[in-house]
């Protein structure tokens, strides 16, 4: 698998330093699960953290701290058995309660379905399922949006995005990604702009305001 579209290096650094909202952490973790190039960037950013930790001014632990910790040590965890690879990368599983078949889709019009994932409120994450030939809804958004392809593909302004590819868009860009022929395109999309509907709106209104 060749991944051509990656997050910006600053975003990977912000992931390594722990400065991203939960939804952005989620999409970067999902992309890195599929992309060894970005995994190497993140792990080398981790190494800077290791160096800072090694050289941090130490502060004495309380008396008895070591004894208390040692007394509580248990048998170490057995390594987890290798997971059968599925469609959703492992970081997404706790958010949907399993792989793709556990996703609770809700229709949002034009045959598009979505599932909003439970992350902290600073940013939002949702899975989208788009039939071939249909535009990914409402990409003329504010704020920053990252879109990661998990199944199928979409095309945008001549660029092709397939599994593992991550599109970066900010509020300046108006673009209209369209799902490519073949299997439904499944994406994870995160944004730090408020979603245009809230959960309390009646479903009929949601349908007209889109996503």
């Amino acid at each position, binding site marked *: 698998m060749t991944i051509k579209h990656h997050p910006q290096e600053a975003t990977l650094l912000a992931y390594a330093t722990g400065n991203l909202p939960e939804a952005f952490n989620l999409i970067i973790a999902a992309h890195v699960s599929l992309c060894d190039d970005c995994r190497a960037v993140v792990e080398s950013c981790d190494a800077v953290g290791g160096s800072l930790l090694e050289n941090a001014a130490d502060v004495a632990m*309380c008396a008895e701290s070591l004894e208390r910790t040692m007394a509580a040590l248990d048998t170490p965890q057995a390594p987890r058995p290798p997971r059968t690879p599925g469609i959703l990368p492992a970081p997404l599983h706790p958010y949907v309660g399993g792989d793709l078949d556990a996703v609770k889709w809700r229709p949002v019009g034009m045959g598009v379905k979505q599932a909003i994932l439970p992350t902290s409120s600073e940013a939002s994450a949702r899975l989208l399922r788009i039939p071939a030939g249909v535009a990914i809804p409402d990409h003329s958004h504010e704020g920053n949006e990252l879109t990661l392809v998990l199944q199928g593909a979409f095309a945008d302004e001549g660029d092709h995005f397939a599994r593992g590819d991550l599109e970066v868009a900010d509020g300046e860009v108006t673009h209209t990604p369209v799902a490519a022929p073949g299997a439904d395109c499944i994406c994870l999309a995160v944004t730090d702009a408020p979603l245009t509907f809230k959960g309390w709106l009646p479903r009929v209104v949601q349908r007209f305001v889109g996503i």
Partner: protein
Amino acid sequence: MLAQVTPLETQTPAAAVIGRSAQGLYGVEMAGKMGVANEKLGFDAGQQTDWVQMMVLVRDHQDRSAFAALFNHFAPRIKGFLIKSGADAAMAEECAQDVLTTLWNKAGQFDPTRASVATWIFTIARNRRIDMLRRQRRPEPEELTWGPEPEPDQADVIALQQDSENLSAALAKLPDAQRDLIEKAYFGDLSQSEIARITGLPLGTIKSRIRLALDRLRHAMQ
């Protein structure tokens, strides 16, 4: 032996640790004073305790002496790091203990061809800090299902540890303003847009090394 040859490595590492414990140098009363102890023993830069070997002892033998050595070296640093990140002393203490407990539980996931012990501990501490301060989980990338190898090539381990030391040296040589910015990012004081201003991180060498290690792991799997 895994890293630089030190006089203590003529003993087994566990024996060396136990010996030092018996001298009281690794006792609890010395926690926080290890810098002094290290200087007295000549354990400063270039003659470091072999933390990778300590991790192997914890992983393969649940060696409590090795655990104590790791605790006494790293827990006060984690605590200092967290206090500098804005945690209060009680939370930093609790978090440092949690991090070392996680080290014990997950020792089998440490891959010395991709991270130094300090780096691996940093990632645990960072995640624990997010848990505690923000009360939210931090999604982690999927583990490589086939790694780490139980017996990695020692040349790869040494090369990665050497790259980590070189990275520290390169960071130390950065202009003060740039290093301050980097420290602020890692101590949690920078927003994502401010982080975009950080340029010139000396990551090239270690990034290539980790990339090769990932390739090797994937290749070994096929």
